[in-house]
C-alpha cells in the first residue's frame, strides 16, 4: 500500500451456505470485482464474534464486511438474526470509536453472484474514499 492509488485491504466473513456459495457463483460466472477482498469462511454468520471484526481492523484491515443468508433463509434457522443484532450493537459502539464506516453487514444469497460483485465493488470504493485506516499506527503514535 501507500504507492500510487490506495488499495484497501478488506476482510470478509462469509457463511458457507449462502454467501460463500454466492461468492463462488460470481467466480464461476466470471463476474469481476476488485481484488481487495479476502474471504474468511465460517459455517454460519452467527459464528462471527465482534472480537474477530475488531481483530481484523486492529491487525491492519481497512474495512470488514460481514455477509450471511437473507433473513429467514439461515441454514441454521436463526444464526443471521444473531449476526444482525450483534452488528447493530457493534455499529453503535464503533460510532463512538469513530469507526462505524469501516464495518458493514450484507445479506448475500447463494444465487446472488452479481449482487456480491456489486456489494464488494461498492464497499471497496467506499473504503477507498475513506482512506487507509492504519489503526495500530494511529492509536499507538504519540
Amino acid at each position, binding site marked *: 500500500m501507500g504507492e500510487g492509488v490506495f*488499495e484497501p*485491504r478488506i*476482510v470478509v466473513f462469509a457463511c*458457507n*451456505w*449462502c454467501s*460463500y*456459495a454466492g*461468492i*463462488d457463483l*460470481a*467466480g*464461476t460466472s*466470471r*463476474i*469481476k*470485482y476488485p*481484488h481487495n477482498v*479476502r*474471504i*474468511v*469462511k*465460517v*459455517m*454460519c454468520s*452467527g*459464528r*462471527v*464474534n465482534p*472480537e*474477530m471484526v475488531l*481483530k*481484523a*481492523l*486492529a*491487525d*491492519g*484491515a481497512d474495512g470488514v464486511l460481514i455477509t450471511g443468508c437473507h433473513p*429467514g*433463509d439461515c*441454514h*441454521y*434457522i*436463526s*444464526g443471521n438474526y*444473531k449476526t444482525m443484532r*450483534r452488528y447493530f450493537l457493534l455499529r453503535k459502539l464503533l460510532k463512538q470509536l469513530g469507526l462505524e464506516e469501516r464495518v458493514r453487514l450484507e445479506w448475500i*444469497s*447463494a*444465487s*446472488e453472484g452479481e449482487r456480491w*460483485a456489486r456489494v464488494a465493488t461498492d464497499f471497496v470504493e467506499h473504503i477507498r474514499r475513506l482512506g487507509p485506516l492504519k489503526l495500530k499506527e494511529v492509536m499507538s503514535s504519540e
Partner: protein
Amino acid sequence: MSDVRIGVYICHCGKNIAGVIDPAKVAEFASKLPNVVVARDYMYMCSSPGQALIEEDIKKYNLNRVIVAACSPRMHEPTFQAVLRKAGLNPWLLQMVNIREHDTWVHEDTPDKAEEKAKELVAAAVARATHLYEITTEKAPVVKSALVVGGGIAGIRAALDLANAGIKVYLVEKRQSIGGKMAQLDKTFPTLDCSKCILTPLMVDVARHPNIEIYAYSEVVDVSGSAGDFKVKIKLKPTYVDWSKCTGCGVCVEKCPGRAPSEFNEGLGIRKAIYFEFAQAVPRRPVIDPNYCLWFTKGICRVCSKVCPVGAIDYEQKERYVELNVGAIVVAIGYEIYDMTKMVEYGYGKFKNVITGLQLERLSDADGPTKGRIVRLSDGKEPKTIAIVLCAGSRDEKHVKYCCRFGCAAALKHVYYIKHSVPDAKVLVLYTDVRAFGKGFEEFYQKVRSWDDVYFIRGRPAEIFEDKDGSLIFDVYDSNTGQLINVKADLVVLESAVVPPKDWEPLRRLLKVSCDPGGFALELHPKLRPFETTADGIFLAGTIQGPKDIPDTVAHAAAAAAAAIGFLLKGYVESVPYLATVNEDLCSGCSLCASVCPYDAITIEEKEGRRVAKVNVIKCKGCGACAATCPSGAMQQHYFTDTQILSEVSTLAGGAK
C-alpha cells in the same frame, strides 16, 4: 501444537489458475512460511497423479497438515480429504485455499494483484492450519424410506424408481389427483403422441405399487430432523369424503347439482362441486369443494350423501395430520405459468380472446371443455386468424429473465393443433428465436414452417388492443423484413413464461434449500450435481430445479431417484464435524451458549458442584452460534475455533509479511 509439519500444494487447474498467476511463485513463497516442510505446484491436483503426489509427500515428509490451494472447497474438499484418509491422516488436518473462484476467475484483469492475493490466502491458511487438530465424526443410521413431494410426471417417475429399488415411498400431491401439468396437455411434442395415453398407465402403476403410499389432497407443513432421519408432518386437507369407505363409483359426481370453474381446464368450462380432477384421476376418490357445494354455501342439497352407496360422505370431516419418518426427500413440485395479467400490454384477463398455451391445450383436448374444438372465447366462433406469441414474459427484463425451454416447441405443436382443427386458419408465430434444440425438434420445426398460411414473424407485439367485435389488433415489427405489420387476429395465444409454484417458498424454507435468481431450487452443482441440493438428503426432480420439457424432466427425475437410492442404501450418514465442544475447566455454566442454540443441543449440568455446559452431539448441527456467544472462550467449534479463525483473520488483515 508440537512439531507442525505442513505440505502446501498449488494447483494450476490447467489455465484456470496458471493462466492468470504463476503457481510456482506462490509455491516458492509458501515454502518459506513457518512450519512448511514442502510446497509444490502441479497441473491438476485433483487428478490421480496429483493426489498420489500429496499421498507420497505425506509419507515421505511425515506431514501432519496439508494445504491445497485450488478451486472452491465446495468442489473438491471431499476429494482431498479422501487423500489424507488414504495416507493415514485425519481428514480434518486438510485446509483448502480457494484461489480459483475467489481469485483467478474474477481478477484476471489484475494478474499481479491476483498473485499477491493467492500468496496471502495461502499464508493465512498456513497460519490457520497450524491450529488444526484431529476430529472424529460419528455414523448415524438412515431410515430406508423416502418422501416425494409432487405427483407430476417427475414425482411419478422418481417414486416408481425408488419403490422398485425396494424403498418405501410416500408421495404427497396437493391436488385431488396425481398427474400434474402433463395430464393437462393434449399431445406432446415433437412426436405428437397423446399425453394422457402415455401418462395414465404410469399413474396406475403408482397407485398399485406395494411400496408407494399416496397422500393426495395433502401438503407438507413441517420438516424437522436431518439427512437420513427427517420427521415430516403432512396435512391432509378435508375432502368431506371418507376415502377409506369410498369405492370411486362416481355416482355422487354425476348427481351433484353444484357447479364450479374447472381448475384442470384452466378456468375454461366447469366441474361439479364434488369432483375428480379428470376422468382418469388417481386416486379415484372425489373431494367436495366447500366454496361451491350447496350444503356448505346454502345449507341445502346433501344429494351426494343421499346417493352414496357406502355412506362415505362426511360433511363434518376436519383436516388431519400424519407424521412421517423418512431418510430422503425428493422435491418434484413442478412449475406454474407466469401470471399473464402482469403483462398488461398483452391484455390477458382483460380481453377474452387472449389465452395461454395451456388453455389452448385444454381447448384442443378431446375431453376438454369444447370437446376438442378450438374457438374464440368471446363468441364461440371458429378463429380464422390466430397469433401465437412466444416468450410471453420470458427473456424479458421486466418479467422473467430466463428461457422457458419448451415454449418454442409447444408453439409449433400449437400450430399443429390449430391447422388440425381449423385447416384454413392463418397462423402467425411471433417469435424472438425459435430454439429447436431437442431431439427431433428441428425436423418438427422445418415441417411446421413448410405448411401453408403459417407465418413466422420475428418480433413481439407492441400493445394488444381489443376491437369492437372482440378481435385483437396490434402492431408488430418484423426484424427479419424490417416491416411494421398491423395485425388483426381472432385469437391470441401466449406461450407464457414459467415460474416456481407459489407454495415453493414456504416449503423451501422448511427444507433449507437455496434458490436461484429465478426462485427455482438451487442445485449443488450446475453441471456435476444438478439434482442434489446443499441440504444433505434432499434431492430435486424436474422443473422445480429450472424449466424443462418432458424428456428432460423424466431424465432428471430418474437421476434424482438414483441419487436418493444411493444415499439411502449406503445405510448411514456421517455426523457433522463442525460440532460445538466445551472446555469444562474454563466453563462457568453461565448458560449463554444454551440460550442461543437453535437446536436445544446445549444443556447446563451439575458437575463436581459446578455448573458446566454440555453439548448433545446428536442434536448439534454445527452452526457455531454458541462459540460466538461464549464470553470466556470455553465453548469452541471444531474446525472453526477462535484461534483458528483469528489466526487466519489476522494474517489476512496484516497481509503476507
